[in-house]
């Protein structure tokens, strides 16, 4: 008990003093996840929108697939990316294993299906509303997609935040493909796992608190956006 209390005090100090190791790890985490989010959004938003409004053979298969892939186990993603990037793998020549880029790839694979599936739902709902009007006005497909994405932007931001939350809290995949190398690929979740196993609770706790704060901030933003959307856009 004494030890735990002591650890909390040390953790608090690390945070308050913006400890260099802590800041580095948090910074890398945010950077990796933000990059993965940009990649996933660039793929997932248009793809989700197209799945919501286009009618083509195989569409239902893709919808079911994206829904199913939402629950991809992170360690499986990690293992797959590891095999792709390892020296013996097809992309081994790129030398990406155990780099932040490898972690970006893993997190992107993990959250792109989430963004596709949630975007599809959001855009399908709005399209239900708009479709007759768009058809009457003869709106071209690409204009319709852009208009739907823009008009659903508040809901889509909550989709992106959900993806961000999932990616930054994930540990299995980044551990496998990043390797938790100090100063290179050590992010919050892998550092917490390592420090805890070493019994170094202070840094683990400090990182845990920061991770919690980020989670609160993300969820708070979602709530704020929902509120803003309701007061601004809804009747």
């Amino acid at each position, binding site marked *: 008990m004494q030890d735990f209390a002591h650890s909390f005090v040390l953790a608090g100090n690390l945070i308050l003093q913006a400890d260099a190791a802590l800041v580095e790890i948090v910074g890398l985490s945010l950077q990796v996840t933000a990059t993965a989010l940009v990649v996933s959004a660039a793929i997932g938003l248009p793809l989700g929108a197209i799945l919501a409004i286009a009618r083509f053979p195989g569409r239902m298969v893709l919808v079911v697939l994206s829904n199913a892939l939402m629950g991809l186990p992170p360690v499986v993603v990690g293992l797959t990316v590891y095999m792709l990037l390892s020296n013996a793998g097809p992309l081994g020549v790129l030398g990406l294993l155990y780099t932040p880029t490898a972690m970006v790839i893993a997190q992107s694979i993990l959250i792109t299906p989430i963004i596709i599936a949630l975007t599809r739902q959001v855009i399908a709902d*709005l399209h239900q509303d708009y479709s*007759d*009007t768009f*058809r*009457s006005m*003869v709106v*071209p497909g690409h204009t319709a997609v852009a208009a739907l994405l823009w008009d659903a932007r508040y809901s889509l931001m909550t989709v992106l935040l959900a993806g961000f939350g999932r990616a930054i809290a994930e540990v299995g995949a980044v551990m496998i493909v990043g390797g938790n190398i100090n100063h290179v690929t050590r992010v919050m979740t892998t550092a917490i796992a390592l420090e805890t196993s070493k019994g170094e609770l202070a840094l683990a706790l400090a990182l845990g608190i920061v991770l919690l704060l980020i989670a609160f901030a993300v969820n708070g933003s979602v709530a704020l956006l929902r509120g803003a959307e309701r007061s601004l*856009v809804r009747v």
Partner: protein
Amino acid sequence: MSEVLSFPGHAPLKARTGRSALPLSVRQLTFRTEGIDILRGVNLSLESNDLTVLMGPNGAGKSVFLRLIHGLLQPSSGDIRWDGAPLSKAVRRSQALVFQKPVLLRRSVRANLSFALGLRGFVNRSARLEQALADSGLADLADRPARVLSGGEQQRLALARALILDPKVLFLDEPTANLDPASVLMIEDVIGRVRASGVKIILVTHDAHQARRLGEEVVFLHKGRVSEHSPADLFFNQPQSAEAEAYLNGKILV
């Protein structure tokens, strides 16, 4: 259109009868959904640019008919031709429909209009936009989100958005239902000016007074068929069908 809309005041407009830019010919049109025949063999020719009022009891199929002839619904059978041509995007592009329940984009009033403007290759867009805002009396509300507008303001915006597309044919599905007298007057005023500019208008309304004020001919739809197609004077003074007479006397519902 903009020159027409800027026409000042309530000057009486003597609309001239001419040939419609897109004559409509409907043959044996049926529409069946969920085992129910909504339209059962509608035949109708609208050749002139006279303002056509489409009347009929609730559920008669007026809104469905507009959707069919605008190409938003597929008929179960029958033939629809505009100036001899079947429905296509090109035909639809020359038409505009103001829905019974208009759907506005979740954007500002101005953005709703500029979205529509951007769909066609118009020159001097910003001038047209400002003109449309002024004509619809929405200039002061231009930056308001469209979805927080009052019902009447939304109707006005929906009409302005349809007109800014410069249609040759304009479908209006109960454009003044639920509006106060001043808004009704304002919208009827716009309709009159659009009519005077030669646009073919097909107007659905339950308001017999409005139908008398605006209508030049009346199509009466009942039980999935056209039971009367008469000049407006004749229709209101001496309806030719028993159904129309009963409807005008408030005696039939379905």
